[in-house]
């Protein structure tokens, strides 16, 4: 019992070939679209590469770029095949390539699906990578005179202003590091000496944040220093003050941004998968319907199907073929041994 058998008169075959040609060109465009989505995602990840610790998340855009190119290639091939399909002289040379083509098309769909799944599964890894990267960024904020780290301050400042965030988890992360370089601290003054002595590591810690944490939407000019001291500022209560600084942490802001990107890309990829599947099914129908055409009477009806037998029977067939191949290898070795033994016997007997 063939799977999903359909009748194909000549007119239907012609229409199928034309429709498939159009569909394969759409699929080429979809492949180009996938490639460009991969490039875009990679560019966005590279832009913030300085606050990421590892590049595990880059596997998603890499898969998209590779699969986009492969999709373009196989669909150009499909377009060429169906251009030649209605000419009975030009179609047979393509036939042996069709079975590997189906395998490749299947792999493309599987890879695209895995890219979508990975983009959600790797969220935890992304968050970890950002946690470590931002922690280092905040620690090295003051090292504007150390080669290799001198742009850390500008990077973190611009990040906080663009993404409207402050610190790693929240603004209190700035209270735990010394973010003012020793070059700008007057070590003869009492206040500095007190602060440096007040903690074990001898760091100048204060309850202040850099200017890039300031929220322009606050009705009040920005308060950056003595944030937890209500008496330091007129009419100020730090527990109820919400608009002065950005409340969100930069890790959360970046994760939200990238997850938003992946959520937008997801439906696009799913539609590319469905387009590729429809090209695969249509090409299979075209192949089987053309195979069923009687050479004496090329304009007669024929049947097209997806699988010659049912799914179960096809799986059994495939299993048998695999066993035969394995056994064939074994039997050959056995035969040679027997032939060798016979030859020896003949040699000894003669």
């Amino acid at each position, binding site marked *: 019992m063939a799977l999903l058998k359909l009748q194909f008169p000549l007119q239907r075959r012609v229409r199928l070939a034309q429709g498939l040609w159009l569909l394969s060109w759409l699929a080429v465009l979809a492949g180009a679209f996938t490639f460009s989505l991969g490039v875009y995602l990679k560019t966005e990840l590279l832009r913030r590469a300085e606050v990421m610790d590892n590049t595990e998340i880059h596997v998603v855009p890499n898969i998209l770029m590779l699969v986009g190119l492969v999709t373009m290639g196989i669909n150009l091939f499909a377009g060429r095949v169906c251009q030649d399909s209605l000419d009975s002289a030009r179609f047979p040379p393509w036939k042996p390539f069709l079975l590997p083509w189906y395998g490749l098309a299947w792999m493309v769909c599987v890879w695209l699906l895995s890219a979508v799944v990975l983009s959600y599964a790797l969220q935890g890894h992304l968050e970890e990578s950002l946690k470590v990267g931002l922690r280092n960024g905040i620690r090295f904020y003051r090292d*504007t*005179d150390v080669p290799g780290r*001198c742009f850390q*301050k*500008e990077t973190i*400042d*611009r990040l906080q*202003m663009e993404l409207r965030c402050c610190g790693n988890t929240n603004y209190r992360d700035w209270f735990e590091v010394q*973010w*003012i*370089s020793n*070059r*700008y*601290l*007057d070590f003869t*003054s009492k206040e500095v000496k007190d602060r440096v002595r007040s903690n074990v590591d001898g760091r100048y810690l204060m309850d202040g944040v*850099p*200017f*890039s944490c*300031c929220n*322009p*939407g606050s*009705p*009040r*000019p*920005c308060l*950056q220093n003595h944030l937890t001291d209500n008496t330091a*500022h*007129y*009419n100020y209560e730090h527990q109820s003050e919400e608009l002065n600084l950005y409340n969100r942490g930069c890790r959360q802001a970046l994760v939200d941004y990238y997850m938003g990107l992946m959520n937008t890309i997801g439906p696009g990829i799913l539609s590319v998968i469905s387009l590729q599947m429809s090209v695969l099914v249509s090409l299979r129908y075209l192949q089987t319907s053309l195979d069923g055409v009687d050479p004496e009477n090329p304009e007669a009806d024929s049947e097209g199907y997806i699988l010659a037998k049912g799914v179960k029977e096809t799986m059994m067939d495939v299993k048998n073929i695999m066993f035969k191949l394995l056994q064939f290898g074994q039997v050959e070795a056995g035969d040679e041994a027997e032939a060798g033994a016979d030859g020896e016997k003949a040699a000894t007997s003669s």
Partner: protein
Amino acid sequence: MALMKVKFDLKKRVKLAQFVWLMYWFSVMAGVLVFSMGLFFKIELRKRSEMMDNNESHFVPNLLIGVGLLACGINAMGGKICYDSLDPSKFSRWKPMLKPFLVSCVAFNCLLVLTALLCFLMRIPLQFTLAEGLKNALKFYKDTDTPGRCYMKRTLDQMQMEFRCCGNNNFRDWFEIQWVSNRYLDFSAKEVKDRIGSNVDGKYLMDAVPFSCCNPGSPRPCIQYQVTNNTAHYSYDHHTEDLNIWKRGCRDALISYYGGMMNSIGALVLLVTILEVIVMIGLQYVNTSLSNLANPEDPECESEGWILEKTVKETFTDIMDKMKAMSKGNAVDEAGVDGVATGS
């Protein structure tokens, strides 16, 4: 003596018509481009309308939008004429309209040149508008509780961060106004009372700037308060300190931004003008070559095409004569009517 006479056989005529038709389609796209540039410019002006005083004029972007639409229309019609020109029956319908159409094309090209010139010149009124507008915007920075002005602080902060500028001419503009609202000033404190007493208007002035003036590229955490007081900060000399806050004034920053935009739009309009002149000359050749067939019955015979039937000087004197004749004609008519009226 015709201007730039060229001989045309059938093949050449067909090729010319196809080429001009293609060029007309490029011109339609160029018209769409001019329209979208005008729209973009209008939106950009609207975005910063709070920084400009109320006299800002949207004349140039409106003109660009109008010219873009007109270009689309004229070029689509020209393309249709070229398309029909290869079929003698269809072309004969267009013949009477061609001369007025070409004259209107000349007028349109003059309008395009005028538009480009205005784009380059718009910088000057914009400078005055921005100077006035920014001065007021700085004054209203603290009024975050006044309806209608409560977003001025946010707008100004975001603009200073985006354009990397501070104040109107430079950062000292912030020293001359009170930018901290009275709601956040403790009037019982001695320092506040001293500062308010120190000037005639009773304003709380200080040598400080808002946080949006800070330069993230500075190696040192931003110094906003007591900017001109060298002793207030360790290892600080405000005369040599370049990177702490933005040095450029926002008026200069906005003018160079809009100036760059207007220069590019003006250059684009000039390129479109050149394209329009080319297609107009092409259409004139198509017109003259089809109107001057040696044998009107035989479409495959040779013909000549030119830009002007006589030389430039002669054409110009012809036009002047026609205009004089028309005005004299009016005078004679009136005299005739009067004469007849008085005579009878």
